[in-house]
């Protein structure tokens, strides 16, 4: 079983996908590491991670049902 991670804007563009898949990481630091290992194209992209629609800058545990999203810098307006 994998977890699905939403991708938006320039990240979705670069990955040519609106969803990435990973083996479930235990926490956000694991997620960051796993993302960069499986998707080396992400290394040069700036993004924040949102868990259940809140941006989390530090480490935090990830439960399997969490909604995870990669958010490049916002450019609305």
């Amino acid at each position, binding site marked *: 079983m994998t977890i699905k991670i939403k991708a938006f804007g320039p990240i979705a*563009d670069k990955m040519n996908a609106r969803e990435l898949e990973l083996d479930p990481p235990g926490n956000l630091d694991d997620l960051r590491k796993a993302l960069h290992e499986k998707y080396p194209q992400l290394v040069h992209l700036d993004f924040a991670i949102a868990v259940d*629609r809140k941006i989390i800058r530090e480490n935090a545990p990830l439960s399997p049902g969490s909604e995870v*999203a990669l958010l490049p810098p916002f450019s609305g307006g």
Partner: protein
Amino acid sequence: MEKKLKNIFVDGPIEPVFISNSIANHSRKTGIGGHSIFLGQIRADPKEGNKEVVAIDYSTYRDMALEKAHEIREETFNKYDLHCMHIYHSLGKVEKGGISLFVFTSSKHRSPAIQACNELVERIKSELPIWGKEILSDDQTNWKVNT
């Protein structure tokens, strides 16, 4: 999440007649003395190689954007003495000269409406998960960066 979130998104450009209808809807709210409105319009910015921006294609993380917009609304109503507050942002393609952001605040005296409107524009640009992809005159694209 049980709360009903107000939609802020409009497909394509925000038409001037939508704005005037919104204004006209306030004529019965006779406690209002001042309205402040901000409109964001798509600029035909010049780009390297004799190109220019011909449109911006907006996308969003909708659930998060509506939750965040709700939070911004609540905080702004708590901070300023406002009668009304309306926020609209385009999704999809808006051509140069079109309007993509409409922020509208109303208060008894002018100051709260003006201050809240300015603060909302700043927060919408920096806190809502919305992305604008510039479409250039040669059909190439470029992700917009907010400064």
